[in-house]
């Protein structure tokens, strides 16, 4: 089968952005909670916005705020950067799996766009690629919209404190995991997935019990990828 050309169009960007709408409540709640946490920890408004929009990686921001203490010392700084790296280690794998698609796009376009890489737009982009989509605006548009919503939602969270007093009461904390679980469904094709996901699940659960934290994402994902790679047809 000849490979189709990979393109980018405004229409594709808009479609990618629209696909993120169902998870807006989850993103908004998470960013607002980050704003509240940052305010409670004594960050200034500018510091909060900078961290939120520049680092742009939810879980690692929360973990870094756990480590943070005022006044900030050099040791704490190193710890904050260290936990950020540990939590975001999975980005290596996520980025690697985009290579077959974005590899055909010029580097001067992909490398800036990789700044917007999150689990969410990566997953949307890959599931569309699986359906035959070759407009990488899906990735770009979803990345831009998620960054924008994430960047804005931190503001009410910072000032209103407990604007959404308890996100859990509205089920907002399950929005993102539920979205992931839903996107997992069409990825299942047969035995290869069953074996790979079992390997990922066992190793992730084992890592979680033994080490805790976010390492389980990395170890589980690697185990699943190896299982998939070495299961011959």
């Amino acid at each position, binding site marked *: 089968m000849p490979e189709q050309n990979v393109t980018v169009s405004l229409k594709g960007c808009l479609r990618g952005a629209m696909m993120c709408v169902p998870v807006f409540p989850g993103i908004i709640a998470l960013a607002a909670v980050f704003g509240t946490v940052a305010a409670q920890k004594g960050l200034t408004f500018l510091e909060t916005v900078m961290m939120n929009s520049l680092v742009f990686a939810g879980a690692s921001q929360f973990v870094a705020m756990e480590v943070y203490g005022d006044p900030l010392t050099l040791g704490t700084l190193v710890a904050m950067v260290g936990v950020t790296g540990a939590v975001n280690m999975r*980005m*290596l794998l996520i980025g690697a799996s985009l290579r077959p698609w974005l590899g055909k796009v010029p580097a001067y376009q992909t490398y800036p766009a990789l700044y917007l*890489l999150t689990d969410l737009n990566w997953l949307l982009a890959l599931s569309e690629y699986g359906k035959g989509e070759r407009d990488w605006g899906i990735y770009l548009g979803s990345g831009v919209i998620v960054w924008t919503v994430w960047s804005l939602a931190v503001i009410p969270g910072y000032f209103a404190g407990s604007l959404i007093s308890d996100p859990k009461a509205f089920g907002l904390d399950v929005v993102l995991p539920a979205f992931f679980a839903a996107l997992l469904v069409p990825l299942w094709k047969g035995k290869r997935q069953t074996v790979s996901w079992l390997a990922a699940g066992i190793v992730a659960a084992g890592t979680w019990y033994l080490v805790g934290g976010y390492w389980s994402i990395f170890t589980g994902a690697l185990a699943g990828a190896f299982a998939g790679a070495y299961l011959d047809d």
Partner: protein
Amino acid sequence: MTDAAFSADRLFVLAVLCMSVVTYALRAGGYWVMGRLPITPRMRRGLEALPGAIIVSTVLPIVLQGGLAVGLCLIVAAAVQVRLRKEYIAVFCAAAVAAGLRATGL
């Protein structure tokens, strides 16, 4: 809003910049490495297995931590998706079930 709101500690700015650089290096690094390795059929299969494996490894610890209620919500989301193939309905149902369960104190 006061001037203090728009001030930033210098060391904190440095921390944010370092965190951003590390995160970007991870975002771009995996992609970069894959461009320099020959993609064998085996590696292609591994890359294809990666998305599902990452989702399983991300979601499972959330369930282990969140307990029965969270697990139930995600099963609802997956079940709705199997039948309807509409992500937004699946997400809505999961959140509704979570809100319902918590209202009853589970």
